[in-house]
Structures are given as structure tokens and as C-alpha cells.
């Protein structure tokens, strides 16, 4: 089980959290101007690196706050 460090609550077990996937995927600034290809990229395509990955978690069973972190997808080590 992962031990995840919530920025507000400290280190807690993975079962207290839910995963939010890739971080920093911004909602399109001008959605009406997007092509179908750009909508597909926004809705369905995400990075899938083997190595460091900036991702989101939410501390659902704790403070319920979202945060960003960087985790290595091979070793599961968190950087922040």
C-alpha cells in the first residue's frame, strides 16, 4: 500500500485517498474554438510516462482537499 503525504494532514495510507490522474490539465481557455481533435486530446488523451509523473490525489477520508504531487510510476516514490 502506498503511504501518501497529504500537504495538510501528513502521511496517511492510500485507502484514505482517491486518484485524480494527470495534474495541470487545464480546461480549454476558449472551448468554442476547439476542433474535434483538440477536444479529443482534452477529454481522452493523457500522458502515460514510465518515470516521474505529475498527478493529483484527493484526501477523501481526511481533509477532502485536492493536491498535486510528483510520483515515479516505476518505484512509486513521491518527490513532493
Amino acid at each position, binding site marked *: 500500500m502506498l503511504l501518501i503525504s497529504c500537504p495538510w494532514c501528513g502521511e496517511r495510507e492510500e485507502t484514505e485517498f482517491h486518484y485524480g490522474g494527470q495534474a495541470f490539465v487545464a480546461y480549454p481557455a476558449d472551448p468554442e474554438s476547439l476542433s474535434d481533435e483538440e477536444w479529443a486530446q482534452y477529454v481522452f488523451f*493523457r500522458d502515460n*510516462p*514510465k518515470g516521474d509523473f505529475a498527478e493529483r490525489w484527493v484526501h477523501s477520508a481526511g481533509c477532502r482537499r485536492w493536491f498535486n504531487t510528483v510520483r515515479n510510476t516505476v518505484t512509486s516514490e513521491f518527490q513532493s
Partner: protein
Amino acid sequence: MEHPDWLWRTPEPKKSYDVVIVGAGGHGLATAYYLARNHGITNVAVLEKGWLAGGNMARNTTIIRSNYLWDESAGIYEHSLKLWEGLREDLEYDFLFSQRGVLNLAHTSQDVREGTRRVHANRLNGIDGEWLTPDELVEVCPIVNTSPDVRYPVLGGTWQPRAGIAKHDYVAWAFARKADRYGVDLIQGCEVTGFITDGNRVTGVETNRGPIHAGRIGLAAAGHTSVLTSTLGVRLPLQSHPLQALVSELLEPVHPTVVMSNHVHVYVSQAHKGELVMGAGIDSYNSYGQRGSVHVIEQQMAAALELFPIFAHAHLIRTWGGIVDVTPDASPIIGRTPVENLFVNCGWGTGGFKATPGVGWVFAHTLAHGEPHELNRPFTLERFTTGALIDEHGAAAVAH
């Protein structure tokens, strides 16, 4: 003691092939076999970074079924099941295919509606399926607990009698042996590190054993597909996750079929040798680590015990994880990429084993003609742009 005959050669890679397949798992091997058998294309190499069939082919729970909801899925999975039914004779190798049927249990009124709908959809597609009441399903699998006094009582289930299991390692060896006999080079310990390109066209692969040129390249690398395509700057709608499975100690035959439950989430069969083989859903986070979290195992053990109180004294012997590539609609991507001569077979998520012969057939067709087979035509990468998704999340009788 004399070593038994090798089932395939260990050739040195040639400089060039008509087709290079990346990944010698079940899908890659089946594709190579059908390229030779159906299309007469034998100047083929299957490149494997580890050992033959040592990835997800060695880690899955061997369930074979075709009771998917949507027509597109029914097409490819039923094609696969029909191939399984004649595969032992075709490959001249016994891989212990056992059509012991699969029960998909329903625990809520929503499950009941979805299950009956799926049975009707299956039957309209010519796929065997029945709705069983709790009393009827106990006749099929007497050890299922149908007591109303549990947290999620069994309200019924769908039954596909032609479903079953097979011995996964033997399946890979059977395809490998036949492909090798056609002259296909199976090259283990050969990791693809990048592609050789000419404009927007791939002409070969870079490997740890030097460059290998190819007319067409087919990726059958499961969880590592994104890693390969990212070297070309091609992004795919895939996320790689751990999927865990486990086995018990060897037990007397007690479990006559395959039981899956979406709602309490576990699937269980008993291997020929006697182990109970179980699995459930993916771990939530992206990972290439081939291991998962123990609470995922705990949850499926709790589910298994509620369904099968008889397992209370069984010992868990071994758990493991594989890396599966999951798409947004839980259906695979089989076909062209934005790069000429590069084809993908990926996104099988948690359910690729059952499709082994079926996808080998259609991916071989795609690589031979540069065009999809009728059955994989809907499974394009473009569907994420057009919106023609094949949404098997939940619909496919198991949560992913």
C-alpha cells in the same frame, strides 16, 4: 538427463523483415502465426524484451468468454471464442481449453437489469447466454452462497456455457511453436528502444541488439505501448495500471465453472492443477511497477469469502501484478496510427487473454493489408475524436 526438444529456435535477428511485431506475448505470437498461416507472410520477427510470454500472458486469470454487450465487442470476442474451439487441432498442441462456462452474478436490481439486457444482446448476436435465478445457478455452481442473509445477496446471474479457461503458458508455447515452424523468428532479450523513421514513416526499430528494418511494424506491447509510441511523439489514450491476481494452495476440485461478480468484485475459477485463481480490478494509480497494493487483494478476498464460504480455510499462496493499458472506453485500439507503417494493438486493459486468437487473426490481417479486418474496423484510434466509442465500462460484465 536429456533436455526435451525445444519448441522454437533461438535465432539471431536479421537486418530486415517484412513485418516486425513488438512483444512476444499471446497477442504478438498469435499475430505472427496468423500472418504466416492466413497470409503467407513468414519473413516476420517477434521481438521480446524479456522472455517469451513472460508479461501479462503469464499473469492473467485465463478466463475466456464472449458475453460482451455491444455488437462490435461481440463480433471480435465471439470470433475469438470460435477460434478457441478449434485451436487445439489447428495448433496441434493441447493447452487444456475447458469450456466450463462463466457465471456473472447480479447483486442489485440494476445488476439484474444489466445482466438480462446483456443476455438478450448476446443472443441477438448469436452468442449463447441465459439468465439464471439463484436456484438455477446453484445447479451450475453448488458452492455459491445464495443466502439472502449477506451484505449483497445473489439475485441471479448470466450464464455463458461455452466460456471457460485455458492454460495460458501452453497457449503461448503452442502459437510460438507453430509460428517458428513457419519460419518466424522469435527473438527474446531484444528490447525495442526507438524507431527508425523516414519522414512520417517508420522503416525499422532500434533495439539493444542493433537496428532491425521492417516493412510494417505492429506493436503488441500491452502496458508499455505508450512508452514505445512516445519516442515518436505519438500520444495514445492509454493509462497503464497494475492489475493483480492471486492463487490459493492446491485444493480438491470444488469449483466447476468460472464465477465473476462485478458488484462485490472478484472473479474465481479453479485451475486444472487445483489452485483457486482469483482477480479483480486494477489499482487506481498509474504504474509500471508490476506490483499493487495489498488492500486491493483484501477487498477481493472479502468478496470471495462472502460468495464462497467454503474457501474460508484456503490459504493464499501467491499474488502478483501485471501492467495493463486501459482506454477511456474499456475497449482496445487495433489498427493504424498517425505514423505510416506503424500499427497498434493495445488498450486491452484487464481482458486481453480471451481475445488472443481473435486479435491475432485481425491484427495479422491489418498488418498484411495495411487495412483493418471487418472485425477490428470499429476499434480505431480515431473513435476518440469522432465519438464512436465502444463503451464496455460496466457493460462488459466486469468493472475494470
